[in-house]
C-alpha cells in the first residue's frame, strides 16, 4: 500500500482495475516496474507492472517458454534485465548480486533441482543458515567462536528436516535422495535461510502424487507462518487448490491475473494456456522450447 502510493501516486485504484494485468495489491511485498529482458530477438520477459501481495500464495502459470523462469532469474538477481526496476519491501533491488537479494529475504529454488550432492542432507541445510559467523575465513580456524552457533544451526536444521520427513536421511549424502526428496530438501533448505518471500520454480515437477501432497501441505503451513510464496506450477488442480492469486504469463507478458476461480474462467487464459482440446490437437499450444 505504502509502496504503491510513493512510487506511482498518480494511479488510482479505479484506474488500475480498468487494466487488469498489473493490478495493485493492498500490501505488496514485491513490486515490479517495466521489466524487460530480451534474448536475441525474443522478449523473454516484458512486464509493465506486477505486484505480489504479502502473506499470500501466488501461482505463476503459463506455457513453457512463457518467461516464468527468466522472471525468477531477474527478480532474484541471477540475470540482469535490459531495463526495469523492482522493490522488495520498498527497497530497490536493481543491480544487487543474487546473494545480497537472498539475504534481504527473497530466496528462490530452481526448476532443475540443485541439491548439493556430495554434502550430507544435514550439511545441505546448515549451509543455508544465515547466522553462522564461522563461515568467515578469518574465524574458520577458531573453533570456539563458531561451535556454539553450530549446535543451534544443527538443531534448527534437524527440526526442519523432521518437518519435511527427511530426518532419517540427515547423514546421507544428498545425491542419494530420490528426485522428490530432493525437491523437499531444496524447499527445506530455502526455509533454513529464513526468507520472507520464497520463490519456488516448479516445485512439484517430477514429484510423485504422494510427495506432491506433502509438499503442498508444507507450502500451506509456511504460508500460515507468514511467509509469502510465489510458485510456478503447471498442474491446474494444484493451482486451484492452494493459491490465493494466479498470474498468467504468455510470451513474456502477463496475460491476466486474479483469484484462481476468476482466472480459470477467463477466455484468454483458456486459449493461451489451458488450451481447448481443438487447439491441442492442432498443436497450437504455444510450446516454445
Amino acid at each position, binding site marked *: 500500500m505504502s509502496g504503491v502510493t510513493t512510487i506511482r501516486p498518480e494511479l488510482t485504484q479505479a484506474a488500475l482495475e480498468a487494466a487488469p494485468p498489473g493490478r495493485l495489491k493492498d500490501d505488496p511485498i514485491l513490486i515490479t516496474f517495466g521489466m524487460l529482458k530480451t534474448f536475441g530477438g525474443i522478449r523473454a520477459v516484458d512486464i509493465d507492472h506486477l505486484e505480489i501481495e504479502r502473506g499470500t500464495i501466488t501461482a505463476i502459470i503459463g506455457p513453457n517458454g512463457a518467461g516464468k523462469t527468466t522472471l525468477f532469474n531477474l527478480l*532474484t538477481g*541471477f540475470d540482469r534485465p535490459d531495463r526495469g526496476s523492482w522493490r522488495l519491501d520498498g527497497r530497490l533491488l536493481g543491480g544487487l*548480486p*543474487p*546473494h*545480497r537479494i*537472498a*539475504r534481504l529475504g527473497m*530466496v*528462490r*529454488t*530452481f526448476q532443475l533441482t*540443485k*541439491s*548439493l*550432492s*556430495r*554434502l550430507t542432507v544435514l*550439511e*545441505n541445510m*546448515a*549451509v*543455508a543458515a*544465515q547466522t*553462522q559467523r*564461522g*563461515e*568467515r*575465513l578469518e*574465524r*574458520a*580456524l577458531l*573453533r570456539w567462536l*563458531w561451535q556454539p552457533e*553450530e549446535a543451534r544451526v544443527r538443531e534448527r536444521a534437524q527440526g526442519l528436516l523432521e518437518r519435511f520427513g527427511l530426518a532419517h536421511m540427515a547423514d546421507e*549424502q*544428498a*545425491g*542419494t535422495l530420490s528426485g522428490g526428496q530432493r525437491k523437499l530438501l*531444496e524447499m527445506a*533448505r*530455502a526455509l*533454513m*535461510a529464513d526468507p520472507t518471500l520464497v520463490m519456488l520454480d516448479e516445485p512439484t515437477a517430477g514429484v510423485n502424487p504422494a510427495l506432491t501432497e506433502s509438499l503442498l501441505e508444507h507450502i500451506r503451513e509456511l504460508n500460515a507462518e507468514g511467509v509469502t510464496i510465489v510458485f510456478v506450477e503447471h498442474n491446474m488442480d494444484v493451482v486451484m487448490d492452494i493459491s490465493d492469486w494466479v498470474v498468467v504469463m504468455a510470451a513474456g507478458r502477463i496475460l491476466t491475473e486474479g483469484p484462481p476461480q476468476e482466472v480459470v474462467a477467463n477466455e484468454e487464459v483458456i486459449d493461451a494456456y489451458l488450451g481447448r482440446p481443438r487447439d491441442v490437437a492442432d498443436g497450437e499450444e504455444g510450446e516454445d522450447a
Partner: protein
Amino acid sequence: MDFDIIFGNAARAGLGPQAAIFALAAIGLNLHFGYAGLLNFGQVGFMMLGAYGTAIVVATWGGSLWLGIPFGLGLCVAFALALGIPTLRLRSDYFAITTIAAAEILRLLIRSSPATDITGGPFGLQAIANSFFDLNFLPDGRFGWGTFSYSSNQLWVMIVAWILVVLCSALVLALIRSPWGRVVRAIREDEDAVLSLGKNTVAYKLQALVIGGVIGGLAGVIDALQQSGVGSENFEPQVTFFAWAALILGGLATTVGPVVGAVLFWFLREGVESFIRELSEQGWLPNALADFLDGAEGAISIALMGIGLVALMALRPQGIFGRRRNLHLGT
C-alpha cells in the same frame, strides 16, 4: 637386473624433496578442485612465483631469505587475485583455460630478456639458500642404504618440507571441516544453489584460490631452497599436469590423497626410469632397441604416465583410492 638399485632409486624419489614439493602443490590443487571445484591448471604459476619471489629478494636485491619467502608467497596472493577477480565469475572451463595460459605466459615473461636484470632471464638465479642450510643441524655425510640415501642437506630439506606437508594438510583439513569449508564444498557442488542461499560465492572461491595458491607457492619455495636457485625451465606447464596426476592418483577431496599420490607418483616415475636404464644395460635386448632405450627413460616414463592417466580415467575414474560412489552422485 638389479632390483635393489631400482627399488632404492624409486624409494629415494618417493620420499625425497621432489615428492614433498609435489605433495604441497597437490594439497593446494586439492583445496582448489577437490573441495572448491576450481579447475586450476596453472598451479605451476604459483610455484614459480613462490620460488622466484624468494630468489629475487635474495639474489637480485641482496635481501634476507626470511624476507624473500614471505615476499614470494605475497606474489602468490597477488597472482591469485589478479587471476581470480576477472575469471572466477565465469564458467569453470573458462577459468581452467585462463589459468594454464596465465602461468605459462608468466613463465615466458620471467625468462624474457627484458626481465633478465631481475629474474636472471634464461639463466635463472643462484645461491639463494645459504641461510637456510646454515640452520642444518645434521652431521655431514650420507644417510641411508645403497641408492636409497640422501645427503645431509637433502635430508634437511626433506625434514622441513615434510613438516610443511603435514602442517598444510592439517590446515586444509581444519578449514574444510569448518563452516567456511562447508560453504566452499557446497560451491563445488552447485554454485547457483549456494548463491541463492545468500553466500557470496565469488569471495569464497577467491579465498580458496589464494590459500591453495599460497600452498603451491610454498612448494616453489622449497624447490628454490633445495636447488639453492631457480630456473624458468623448472616451471613448464607439464609440472601442473604432474601435480594433477599425483592428486588424481591419490584421490581427490581426501586429506592424505595428495600426499600419498605424490609419493606414489615419484616412486613410480623414478622406478620406471630406473628400470628402463637397467634394462638397456643388461645386454639381453637387441642392440638397436637397447640403444633406443638408452637415455630415453625420461621421455618414455612420461609417455607411460600419459597412458597411465588415460587408463586410470577409463578404468577407475575416481582415482586409485577415491570412492566410486562419489563420482556419480548428482551432476
